[in-house]
Structures are given as structure tokens and as C-alpha cells.
């Protein structure tokens, strides 16, 4: 018997059928205290979840469901380092990475010394590079660092360093991920071999995307560096769980940073994979990010379910998906620095919960992860908001915005800063207006202009649920809190759905077949096993 036929689930289904399913958000807001009652604040992060189609009763029934699914026990198992990743027989200890030796128990405690040692090594490398004392082959200081990695070894550092772009760094950072070589080719034209260092970031150190880009980088260096030891020792760092593979590639031990198989790829920015982040903001800044996430971990591990931010977010998403039948979620940051956040959450959420088999291996009979996508809000307003406002899909939205900008003085009287302040206020005004219109629909139209909207084409149904998350500012700490919040709310959903969020078997077969396809492209006589469509495509390539 799955969760869908459990008592708590059925209670929610009954609750839905008793009318809440039909209730429009605008009527829920007749309660003037709703915003206060349905919001929660933790340190520098504020979550307003009032614009969801839930009542107090919905929430208490959802909490009952969480209890029935033993969520507190699962949270404890996650945070203490038990084997929550049962298909791969290992724990998922991303929270242990950011504990800094504090507030941890069990296996998560036992790995603290290893983590600390690796972070110390990382700090040495970071300080040497940032102070200009990491030298290229000719003796010039390294000025540009290129992170070669894909997936979890790319997206986290890319997203965070882009978000922290207003922090000045002595190092120019670049990211290469795509297997096709275009990024690499374009980037290398702008860089100088004397002053460029590459990070090879790969959990397995077998990722073909990364290794093929690394070969191109090595060839580029070989044009001018004739000593292969110097080439690797001064121009390559390796970050992986596989020191032997890094050594085999030629990376000396002192240039290797190691993490462990209990760090999932999409959770690895907290490990030495976060090296580009530390290069951007310094090791202290990196530790601030970890501390921000740790703050969220402690909250997740200790707050009552009713007042637990990740739990509330996860449960409300379950309600939206499984009871209100909403199968799409938009991530809408209202600051261009958070441009990569939607991609990051797409990976985090869909790679974790995009599954249809439960922990017991049984096919589930309910919906799991929705389709997630997103874009910087003000840009998306000129693109897919049309669908949000008037399409046939119900979509839940997460609006994310910083209250303050820290890249100019708030009290500055300069015209440029005045304009920037005004732009920030405009962006926030748009953020607040959009969630209001999505919620209220026509009811948001001021009476004075109601006439102008009196046509079916200008009808706004509203009733689209949303969360609004306000960060005090965009900083290492708030980003740490934000990412940890989504990690945990994703975990909460997986517990309700009884799936393992920490494996990703779905991405394996494609890699395998790509190898076969590559073999067939190199030697077309091996094409026979393929279907006619794939055969045709290969022939078009090799003709």
C-alpha cells in the first residue's frame, strides 16, 4: 500500500473534496491577518507562503501526513549521516560539509576531521592564487581560472559566483561545461597561457565532457609550455572523489582536492567543488556560505514541523501537486545576479525527485516532481508570464528577491546610485505586483479602470499559488540559506513520496548509448544495432 491510500493522504483528499479545491485565493485573503499567519522568518531570509491555496486546516493535515511518513525521523537520519541513499548504499552528507564541526552527530560527526583537513588544503591553494603567488610556467601570477566541469561540478559554483558578482575578486573566473568545445574554443582565444589555471572538477574523473575539454586545454598549453610536469603542476588543479584517477591524469598530489562519494554531485558546491566560489570571495566568504546553510540545517533539524521553513515549502508543494494537480513550477528571481538560480534548482529538484519508482522499487501511482523552469522575473514577464496569467496550466511560482542591494551606498546621493536605487525599487514593485495579480486575477484591477478590462481577452482568472522569498541582500550567507532551503524542501517531498532523492539512474543509460553512438560515428560499420532514425542521423553526420 502506497502513501496515496494512507489515512493522512485520504484525509487530505477529503479536505480537498470538501471545498478547499474550489476556493479562490482572493477569498482566503479576506482574512486580514493571513499574511502574518502564513509567513515565516529565519535570520536574513523571509518566506511568505500566504498566496497558496491552503488554510490552517490544510497545513495541519499536511503535517499529519509528514508525521505519518516519519518525516522527523528521516530528517534525523539525513542529518546524522545514515544511509538515506539506499540504491547506492551511502549517506547524503551535504549538511555535514557545512557543519564546521558544530551541532553534528553520528557519521556526520565522524567525517568532520576529514572535511576540515581538505578545507585547510583548499584554503592554502585559494590564498596562494588570490594573493598572486600561484605562478604560471613563466613565473607570472595566475590571473584567470577556468573551471572545467559539468552538472554539479559546474552549476553550483557558476550560479553562486555569478550571484556574488558585485564582490571584487583578484581572479577572473570562467566556466566551461559543454562537451561540444565551442565554449572552450571561444574562451581560450581571450586568455593567455602564462596566466591561466584550469580546475578539472569531476566527481568520478571519468566524465567525458570534462575530460575532453581538459584535453583541449592541455593542447592549448602545450603550444607554449614544453615541460609537461610544469604544464600540469602550475596550470591544473584537480577536484574529485578519485585521487588515483587524478594522479593518472598527471595531477600531482599537492594540486588535488578530494571529496567523497557521500557528496551527491548536485549537492557538491559545499565541498571542494566550491573552489571557484572560494576563489571569488575568499575562503572566509566560502565559509560564510557554509554557515548560512548550516543555519538552515539547524532550523530544519530542530524547528517544529509547523514552523519549519523547508517542511512547510515541501508540504505545500505536495499539496499543490498531488491534490490541486499542479504539475509545473516557475522559479522567478527578481535580480539578474540570480540568473543561474533557475537552472540550479532545475537540476537540484528534478534530478532528485524526477522519479516514478518508490524506495521499494514499486511504481508509484501518484505524481512526483513537477516540471521546473524559470528565468529572471523581469525578463520572463516579457516571455512566459502570458501563460501564467491566461494559459490553461496551473503553475506554482517562487518569487525570490533581495530587499537591499549592497553594491552601492544606500545613503549615496550620486545620480547613478539614485538611478540604481530606483531600478531596484522598480524591480521589487514588479515582483510584488506579479504575485498579486497571479493570486487575485481580475480582483486586482482597480475599480476606476474596470471598464477597460471588460472583454474576455482581458480576463485574468488568478488563483495561481506562489511563494515569495525575500533575502536581506545577496550574500554568501543568504545564498547558503536559500540553497539549503531548497535542498531540504526537496528532501521533504521525497519522504512524502517515498522515493530516494539522492540517486540519478535516469542519466546513466544516455551516457552509455552515447559511447556506442560515438563508436558508430567513428566506424560506420557499427551502425547496425541502431534504429532507422538514429542510423539516418549518424549517416548524415559522417557522409
Amino acid at each position, binding site marked *: 500500500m502506497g502513501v496515496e491510500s494512507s489515512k493522512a493522504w485520504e484525509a487530505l483528499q477529503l479536505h480537498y473534496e470538501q471545498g478547499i479545491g474550489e476556493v479562490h485565493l482572493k477569498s482566503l485573503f479576506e482574512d486580514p491577518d493571513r499574511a502574518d499567519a502564513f509567513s515565516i522568518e529565519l535570520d536574513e531570509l523571509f518566506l511568505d507562503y500566504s498566496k497558496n491555496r491552503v488554510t490552517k486546516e490544510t497545513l495541519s493535515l499536511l503535517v499529519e501526513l509528514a508525521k505519518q511518513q516519519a518525516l522527523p525521523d528521516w530528517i534525523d537520519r539525513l542529518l546524522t549521516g545514515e544511509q538515506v541513499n539506499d540504491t547506492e548504499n551511502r549517506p547524503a552528507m551535504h549538511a555535514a560539509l557545512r557543519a564546521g564541526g558544530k551541532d553534528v552527530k553520528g557519521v556526520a560527526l565522524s567525517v568532520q576531521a576529514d572535511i576540515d583537513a581538505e578545507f585547510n588544503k583548499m584554503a592554502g591553494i585559494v590564498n596562494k592564487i588570490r594573493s598572486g*603567488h600561484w605562478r604560471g610556467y613563466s613565473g607570472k601570477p595566475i590571473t584567470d581560472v577556468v573551471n572545467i566541469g559539468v552538472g554539479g561540478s559546474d552549476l553550483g559554483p557558476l550560479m553562486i559566483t555569478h550571484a556574488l558578482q558585485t564582490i571584487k575578486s583578484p581572479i577572473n573566473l570562467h566556466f566551461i561545461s559543454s562537451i561540444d568545445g565551442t565554449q572552450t574554443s571561444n574562451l581560450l582565444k581571450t586568455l593567455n597561457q602564462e596566466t591561466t589555471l584550469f580546475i578539472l572538477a569531476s566527481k568520478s574523473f571519468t566524465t567525458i565532457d570534462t575530460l575532453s575539454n581538459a584535453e583541449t586545454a592541455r593542447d592549448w598549453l602545450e603550444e607554449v609550455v614544453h615541460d609537461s610536469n610544469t604544464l600540469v603542476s602550475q596550470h591544473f588543479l584537480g577536484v574529485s572523489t578519485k585521487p588515483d584517477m587524478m594522479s593518472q591524469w598527471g595531477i600531482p598530489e599537492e594540486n588535488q582536492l578530494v571529496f567523497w562519494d557521500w557528496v551527491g554531485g548536485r549537492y557538491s558546491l559545499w565541498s571542494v567543488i566550491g573552489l571557484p566560489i572560494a576563489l571569488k570571495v575568499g575562503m572566509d566568504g566560502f565559509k560564510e556560505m557554509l554557515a548560512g546553510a548550516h543555519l538552515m540545517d539547524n532550523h530544519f533539524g530542530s524547528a517544529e514541523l509547523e514552523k519549519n521553513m523547508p517542511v512547510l515549502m515541501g508540504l505545500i508543494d505536495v499539496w499543490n501537486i498531488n491534490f490541486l494537480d499542479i504539475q509545473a513550477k516557475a522559479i522567478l528571481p527578481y535580480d539578474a545576479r540570480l540568473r543561474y538560480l533557475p537552472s540550479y534548482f532545475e537540476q537540484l529538484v528534478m534530478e532528485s525527485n524526477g522519479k516514478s519508482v518508490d524506495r521499494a522499487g514499486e511504481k508509484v501511482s501518484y505524481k512526483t516532481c513537477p516540471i521546473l523552469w524559470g528565468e529572471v522575473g523581469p525578463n520572463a514577464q516579457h516571455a512566459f508570464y502570458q501563460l501564467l496569467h491566461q494559459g490553461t496550466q496551473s503553475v506554482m511560482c517562487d518569487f525570490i528577491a533581495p530587499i537591499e542591494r549592497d553594491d552601492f551606498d544606500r545613503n549615496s546621493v550620486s545620480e547613478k546610485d539614485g538611478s540604481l536605487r530606483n531600478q531596484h525599487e522598480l524591480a521589487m514593485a514588479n515582483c510584488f505586483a506579479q504575485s498579486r495579480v497571479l493570486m487575485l486575477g481580475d480582483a486586482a484591477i482597480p475599480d476606476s479602470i474596470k471598464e477597460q478590462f471588460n472583454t474576455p481577452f482581458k480576463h485574468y482568472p488568478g488563483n495561481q499559488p506562489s511563494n515569495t522569498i525575500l533575502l536581506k541582500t545577496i550574500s554568501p550567507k543568504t545564498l547558503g540559506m536559500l540553497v539549503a532551503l531548497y535542498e531540504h524542501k526537496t528532501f521533504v517531498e521525497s519522504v512524502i513520496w517515498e522515493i530516494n532523492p539522492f540517486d540519478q539512474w535516469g542519466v546513466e543509460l544516455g551516457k552509455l548509448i552515447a559511447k556506442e553512438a560515438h563508436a558508430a560515428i567513428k566506424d560506420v560499420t557499427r551502425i547496425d544495432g541502431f534504429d532507422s532514425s538514429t542510423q539516418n542521423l549518424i549517416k548524415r553526420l559522417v557522409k
Partner: protein
Amino acid sequence: MKVSVFGCELSGLVTAGALAQTGNRVVAMPIGVVKVEDLYQGVLPRDEPGLSQLIRSQVEEGGLVFEADWRAGVKHGEVLILSMPSWRLDRAEEVIKVIGECATGDVLVVNQSSFPIGTADRFEAQIKLAFAQRGLVAKVSVAAMPEFISEGSAIGDFTRPDRIVLGSRDEQSINRIKDLMRPFNRVTDQVKVMSTRAAEYTKYAVNALLATRISLVNELANNAEHFDIDMEEVRQGMGSDARIGFSYLYPGCGFGGPSFAADVKNLVGTLQSKGYDADLLKTVLSNNESQKEVLFRKAWRFFDTDLRGKKIAIWGLSFKPNTSTVENAPSIKTVEALAAQGATINAYDPKGVADFKKHYQGCSCIEYFEDMYQALEGADALFILTEWKSFWSPDYELMKSRMTTPVIFDGRNIYEPEVMKGLGFRYFGVGRGETI
């Protein structure tokens, strides 16, 4: 003439001493940490050839008095000279304020310091405003007369100048300043009169051109190595072109010092802050910073990128010979670079050790020596960063006997590559000697 000099750093002391020597009654006032008692004791902030004798003799003869109270100076001087480091603009503002508050009659201020363009005009307006507020009717004139003195030859530069750049449009002020400078302007009339802004800009322009020239020569020298060309031969060829000339044509390990590099930096800062172009000068500065590490880079390659445990002797810490100043000197960056790679350093400088210790509080990997040969004991290589006279003709055999390996990286090209090779040294200059 009664003269008051505000500022008792190098430029202020040279100005005060030289003007007292020609019969003026001079009151000199410190504007920073320098103390009047120390000045009377002969403790000077800069170790400049001839300066302490000049100051002592003028104090003894009574022509030069030191004074802590600026108001006394304002009352005393018919000419008030501002002679401060470029980064003490804040103190100059305070002096101007005191002048505005205390002066009782006509005021002639002469600014010698490298302050931003337009400072003289601004100071004049400030004093006039202060006078108006006090109801004082008096003439105010602020002239610009940038100093062109170099450390090591400062007194000669002041008393036998190539030219005197005088920025003022006021006839009476011009005549008075010319009269003050007359003893130093005897052979031909060297005074170039122009607007105050043009005078201020001239100082920056001169340093910008010289800095550009040095950086260009350095870049040419670094690249000459790639083609096995001896830059010294090229220097002879270039310098003999009358349009070019020989001065400031020596390649080396970069320029430094407290005023020259700072002036160019300030000019770039001023231009950039206003959104004007300064691309060439920015490149000149960044090239120069990189050039300060040129010997480090050579050693880095010579030792196959591994300097751990290597002992490097350094001759010369000051930014140029005959001075104790190490500010902005190549020695600081070089020592930092070597220390970061795990090398140890034996340092020798005839005068610069004390100042170097103030600027570099890095690791314990550096040891200081009072004898240049002792510094070579056990050294894997010698770096020459300053062309002190005592380095030019050393006891080569003694050097070799002290060093573990006879390797010289010469940042000032003071030796002949062929001679050094004959003596058994591996010798690497800037654009000369062996190429790595």
C-alpha cells in the same frame, strides 16, 4: 626675504635649507610625524647626501628655524611655501585653513607639492573666501611651482635646476618668486611662466613620459631576450639618435620610490575618476608592477618552478642608490614572491634595511647582513635590485667562494655578460646575458 615652508620631508627640508643658505630668513614647519626637536637634533626623515650638513649649518647660522605652530609661520612669511608629499593633501587643506584664519595682510602661497590639478586655484579661492568672511581686505595669490628634485641628488636639483616651472598669472607674485629663486637661476633664465594648472600638469606630464619611456624600454628588453639580442647594444643604437637621447633608457627591474610612481598613479586616478582616457598610463603602471618581478620570473624558470628551500641573496633593497627609501621598490615584491615559494633570503643594502623592515613584516625567511659578501654565504643565486656603486666592481672570487652556485640575476645590468661568463658565473641581466 621672510619665507615659511610647510612640510619637513625631503622636499621641504631641501627648499628650507637652500633658501636659508641664500640669505632668506626661513621658518620650516613639519606637517606630519616629524618632530621639531628631532630636526634640531639632526634626526632627519630622509637620508639624503649633503642634507644634514646643510640643515645643521643653516640652523647654526640662524637663517633656519623650525617651528611646530603653523600660525607663527603664517605671520612670519612673505612667501608661504607648501612642500609636502602628494598624499598629504589633507594637511595642506588644514594649512590653507590656518592661513585663512590667521593672515593679517597680503598672502603669497607657493605650492610645490604634487596635488591634483586645480588645487592652487582652489586654495586661492578658499583663502579669499575666508578673508571675505573675516572682512579682511588683502591680496591673495596661490602659485604653483612643482619641485623636480630626485632622491640622491635633491640639493643639486634644487640649486641648479634645468628649469623652474612657475604657474601664476599675477605679475607681482611672479616677480617676487623669481626674485626668491634668482640665486638658482643665474646662467640663463630658466623660469618658465605659465598658468597654475599648466604648471601642475607639467609635473605629472614629465613623470608620465619618463615612466612610459622606462616601461617601453623594459618591454623591448624582455623581448630582446627571446631573439638573443643584447639590449645594451640596442640601447647604444637608440640613444645615439638625437631625437631619443640616452637618459631614462636603461632597462631594469622596474621603477619605484615615493613620488615618481605615485605621481603617475595619482594622474591615472584623477583621469579615471572623471571618466577620461588613461589607457596608456594604466598599461605603463601595470607593466612596471610586473617588471618588478622580472628577476623572480627568471629564477623561477632557472630553478624549474621549484624555489622551495633555495637561498637567494639580494643586493640592494632601496628603490635607487644613495637613498634609504624602499617605498614601491622592486625589492618588496621580489621578497614577497620568493618567500611565497618557500625560498629563504639573505638581504644586504648599504642604507635601506631599516626602511625595508618597516615595509615588509613578512615571514622569518629573510635575514639581513651588514656585509655584502656575508649575504652570499650559501646562496643558490644572487639578485641585484639596486645599482649601488659598491656593487659595480666586487671581489668576484670572494663572491664565488661564498655562494653555493655562482648564479647572478642582475636587475640593473651592472656587469658585462662576457666577463661574468669568463669568471664562471651564470649571468642573467634584463635584456642581456643568458636567456632562460
